C-alpha cells in the first residue's frame, strides 16, 4: 500500500470542498479520480501536493504520516503532481528546464554544460523520449504535449513514488494521448502509484485500474474499472438524471434575428448561419475549430474580412465591440475571469458596466438607479452574494457566470452569444444557467451557444451547427443530432483524408 489519505476535510469559507475523504492509492496501479467540476478533485490533489493544508485528516505514505506544508515537502516525500499547464521557463533549453533548481555544476558554482548534456541524453534514452524531445529546444517553442513531458521528466529524474496527473490530455492530440498512456502504463509497471484526474470518461476506462468518484466534496465510492461502465460512473458523479436538467419548451420561431452570411475572418472561412428568435443554436466542434474566434468576430473583437452580419434583416457593419453591442449582440466570452470580469470590483460595478451610458445624467452616474438595477438582476438571476458591493472574485464560478449574464441581460440584447457558459461551474449552477437560457429563449431572444460538452450541446440546442478548421461542416436538427453525428461532422476532414 503506497499513498493513503485518511479522513481529509477542507473548507474554503462557505464551501465544504472535502468532507471526511479516506482513499488509498496503491502502488503499481492507476487510480482515476473522477467528479464534476467543484467535486473536490483538485482540492484533494492540492492537499497531496502540499499546496493546501487539510482542516483535519492526514496523508500517509507507507503508513508514515506526512507533514506537507508546501510542494517542496511533497517532492521530498516522493510525490509529484503534473499540472495541466506546467510552468516552463521560456528562454532556456529543455535540459535546463528539466533540471531546474539542480543544474550540473563543477568547480564550485560554475555551470557544467557538458555534464548537463550527458545527463539529459541518458535520461531521455532511459525513458524513451529521445525522439520526441530535443534537449536544446527553448521552453517557449515546446508544444503542450512536450511541456508535459518536461514536467514528467522533472518528476522521474527525482525519486518519485507517486505521480498525479491533473487533466493531462486536455491539450493533447490523439497520438500524444496514446504515447502518454503508454508511458503511464510503464510507470505503473515500475511500481509507482498513479493518480489520474480527468473528466473524460472514455479515457478513464482505457487507462485506469480503479475509479474513485467524488461528489460535492465527499467520496461516493471506489470501484475496479472492469466492474463498472460509463453510465454507472456518470450516475455516481452527478447523482441525478442528466436529461431532466435540459427539459424546456422549444419555442423557436421562423423570424431570423442573427444572420451570418459568408463571413470570413483571419480564423474562419465563409461561415454562414442563422439564429431565429426563441431559438438556441449550439456551435459544436473540436477545440481549435474556430468557434470562439467566430463569436469574437461577431462581438467586434476580431476583424471581419468579408461577408455580412445582419440583425433583424438589416446588414450591420461590426468593426468595434461597441458597434456589436449597439446592434444588439451580447457576448459572454470563454474565459470568464480573464475576459469578462473586473475581479476586484463589486458585483454592482460588474453588472452595470454595459449600461453606464444609460445610467448617467450629465455624465454623473445616478447611484440610486445603479444600485436598483444591480439588485434587480441579482434577484432575477438568483446570484448568491452577500451584497451587491461584494467583490466578484470572492463568488463561486457559477455565480460569477451569472454576473456576466446579468451584465448583458441588462442591455436587453437581441442576440446572446455564450462561449462555454458552464465551464468550471458545479452541477447545481449549471442547471440554473440552463434554466436562464430557457427563459431567455422563451422571451424571444436568439441564442448562440459554444460548448465542448456534447451532452450539453445535445440537451440545450434546437439546432446544432458543427465547425471544423474554420468552416461549417454541417448542421443538425434536434431530431437528427447524436454524439456520433456531431463527431462525424467535427472530424469530417480527417475522415475523408
Amino acid at each position, binding site marked *: 500500500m503506497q499513498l493513503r489519505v485518511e479522513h481529509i476535510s477542507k473548507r474554503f469559507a462557505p464551501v465544504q470542498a472535502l468532507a471526511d475523504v479516506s482513499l488509498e492509492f496503491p502502488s503499481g496501479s492507476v487510480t482515476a479520480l473522477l467528479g464534476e467540476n467543484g467535486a473536490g478533485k483538485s482540492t484533494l490533489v492540492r492537499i497531496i501536493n502540499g499546496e493546501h493544508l487539510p482542516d483535519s485528516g492526514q496523508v500517509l505514505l507507507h503508513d508514515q504520516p506526512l507533514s506537507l506544508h508546501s510542494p517542496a515537502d511533497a517532492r521530498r516525500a516522493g510525490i509529484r503532481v503534473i499540472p495541466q499547464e506546467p510552468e516552463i521557463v521560456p528562454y532556456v533549453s529543455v535540459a535546463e528546464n528539466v533540471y531546474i533548481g539542480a543544474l550540473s555544476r563543477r568547480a564550485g558554482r560554475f555551470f557544467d554544460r557538458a555534464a548537463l548534456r550527458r545527463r539529459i541524453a541518458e535520461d531521455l534514452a532511459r525513458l524513451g523520449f529521445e525522439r520526441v524531445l530535443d534537449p536544446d529546444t527553448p521552453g517557449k517553442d515546446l508544444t503542450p504535449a512536450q511541456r508535459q513531458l518536461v514536467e514528467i521528466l522533472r518528476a522521474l529524474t527525482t525519486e518519485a513514488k507517486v505521480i498525479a496527473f491533473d487533466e493531462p490530455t486536455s491539450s493533447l492530440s490523439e497520438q500524444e494521448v496514446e504515447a502518454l498512456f503508454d508511458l503511464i502504463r510503464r510507470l505503473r509497471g515500475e511500481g509507482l502509484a498513479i493518480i489520474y484526474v480527468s473528466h473524460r470518461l472514455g479515457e478513464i476506462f482505457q487507462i485506469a485500474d480503479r475509479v474513485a468518484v467524488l461528489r460535492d466534496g465527499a467520496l461516493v465510492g471506489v470501484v475496479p474499472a472492469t466492474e463498472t461502465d460509463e453510465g454507472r460512473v456518470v450516475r455516481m458523479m452527478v447523482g441525478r438524471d442528466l436529461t431532466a436538467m435540459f427539459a424546456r419548451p422549444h419555442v423557436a420561431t421562423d423570424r431570423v434575428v442573427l444572420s451570418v452570411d459568408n463571413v470570413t475572418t483571419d480564423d474562419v472561412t465563409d461561415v454562414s448561419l442563422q439564429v431565429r428568435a426563441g431559438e438556441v443554436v449550439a456551435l459544436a466542434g473540436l477545440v481549435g475549430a474556430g468557434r470562439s474566434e467566430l463569436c469574437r468576430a461577431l462581438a467586434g473583437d476580431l476583424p471581419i474580412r468579408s461577408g455580412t452580419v445582419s440583425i433583424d434583416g438589416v446588414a450591420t457593419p461590426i468593426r468595434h465591440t461597441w458597434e456589436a453591442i449597439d446592434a444588439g449582440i451580447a457576448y459572454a466570452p470563454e474565459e470568464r475571469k480573464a475576459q469578462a470580469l473586473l475581479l*476586484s470590483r463589486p458585483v454592482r460595478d460588474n453588472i452595470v*458596466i454595459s449600461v453606464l451610458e444609460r445610467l448617467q445624467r450629465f455624465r454623473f452616474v445616478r447611484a440610486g438607479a445603479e444600485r436598483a438595477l444591480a439588485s434587480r438582476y441579482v434577484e432575477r438571476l438568483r446570484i448568491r452574494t452577500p451584497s451587491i458591493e461584494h467583490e466578484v472574485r470572492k463568488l463561486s464560478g457559477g455565480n460569477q457566470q451569472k454576473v456576466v449574464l446579468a451584465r448583458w441581460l441588462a442591455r436587453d440584447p437581441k442576440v446572446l452569444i455564450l462561449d462555454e457558459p458552464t465551464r468550471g461551474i458545479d452541477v447545481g449552477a449549471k442547471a440554473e444557467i440552463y434554466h436562464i437560457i430557457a427563459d431567455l429563449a422563451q422571451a424571444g431572444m436568439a441564442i448562440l451557444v459554444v460548448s465542448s460538452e456534447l451532452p450539453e450541446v445535445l440537451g440545450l440546442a434546437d439546432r446544432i451547427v458543427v465547425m471544423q478548421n474554420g468552416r461549417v461542416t454541417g448542421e443538425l436538427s434536434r431530431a437528427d443530432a447524436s454524439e456520433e453525428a456531431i463527431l462525424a461532422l467535427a472530424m469530417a476532414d480527417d475522415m475523408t483524408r
Partner: protein
Amino acid sequence: MTAALRRIGAQNLSLLGALIAVLALFGYLNPDYLSWSNVRVIGNTVTLAGLLAVAQTAVIICGGIDISVGSQVGLAAIVSAMTFAETGDGLANGSAVAAIAVAIVVGAACGVINGVIIVYGRVNAIIATLAMLAAYKGVAQLLSGGQAVGYLQGDDLFIFIVRGSVVGIPTMVWIMLAIALAVHVLLKMTDIGRNIYALGGNATAARLAGININKYLIAVYAMVGMVAAITGIILAARSGSAHPTAGSEGLELKAITAAFLGGCAIAGGRGGIGGTLLAVLLLGALENGLTVEGVNPFWQNVAQGALLVAAVVIQQRRTGDRAVGLPS
C-alpha cells in the same frame, strides 16, 4: 459609522493615522511646526508634487504610468516663458494668458504622443514614457539652448498665482485642490471614471463591454500632460524663470511615490485621489518636520524611501500575489 469607515478604506485610515502621528511628533518637538505660517509653507511645497501625483493616480488606475511628467513640466515651463517673452517687449509685459494657454496645449500634445505610442505602438507604458522622459527634456533644452529662460515675475497674474492667497490659503494650493477635486469627481462619480477603473482592472473585459479603451488611454495621458503643464507654469512663475530640467529633478518620482503610497496598484484598477493627497501631505509634512528639526537632508531622502517600502510591504503582504518571497 462602520459604513463610513469602510468607504474611507483601511489604506486611507492608516495614512491618516501616520499623518496625525507625524504632525503630533513634530508639533511636540517644535511648537512652531504647527503654526499657521509653517502649515502654509508645507502647503506650498506639496502643491507641485501634489498636482503631478493627482495626474499620476489617474494614469496608474488605468494600468499605465507616466515617467515622463518631469520632462513635460520642464518643457511646458520653457514654452510658457518663451511665449510670455515673445508676446511682450523682451522680458516683461507679455501675455500671461497666452503663456498659460500655449503651455497647456503643448502639455496636452506631449500626453497625446505618449498615449499614441503606448496604444498604437503597443509599447509598455514604462518603456514608452522612459524614452519620452529623455526626448521631452531634449526638446526643452533645444528650445532654450540649455539656459534658463525668461522673467515672469513682473506679471500680475503670475504674482497672484504664486504669491497671492484667497481666504488665507495660497492660490497655488487652491489650484491643486481644484484639480484634485475635479479628477476625484471624474473618477468616482462619472461613467468616464468608472470606465477608467474598468480599463485598469481588466482591459480585455472593458473592451468586450464596448468601452473604447484606446480613446480612454490617450485621453488620460493627455490629461496628465495638461496637469504637468500647469505644474510647469507654476514652477516657472515661482522661481521667476523657466529651466528645462526643473521638473525632472525628483519631482516626478515624488509624485509616483505618493500615488503608490496612497494605495494605487501597479497593475491598475485600484487607488484614488483621496489616498494620493493624504500620501502627498504625509511626505510633505515629514520632509518639512525633518527640515525644521535640522535633520540632514540626505536622511530625509532615506526616510521617504523607507516610508514607501514600509507601505508597499504592508500592502503586498495583505493582498499580494507575487510568486517571489513565498515559502519554498
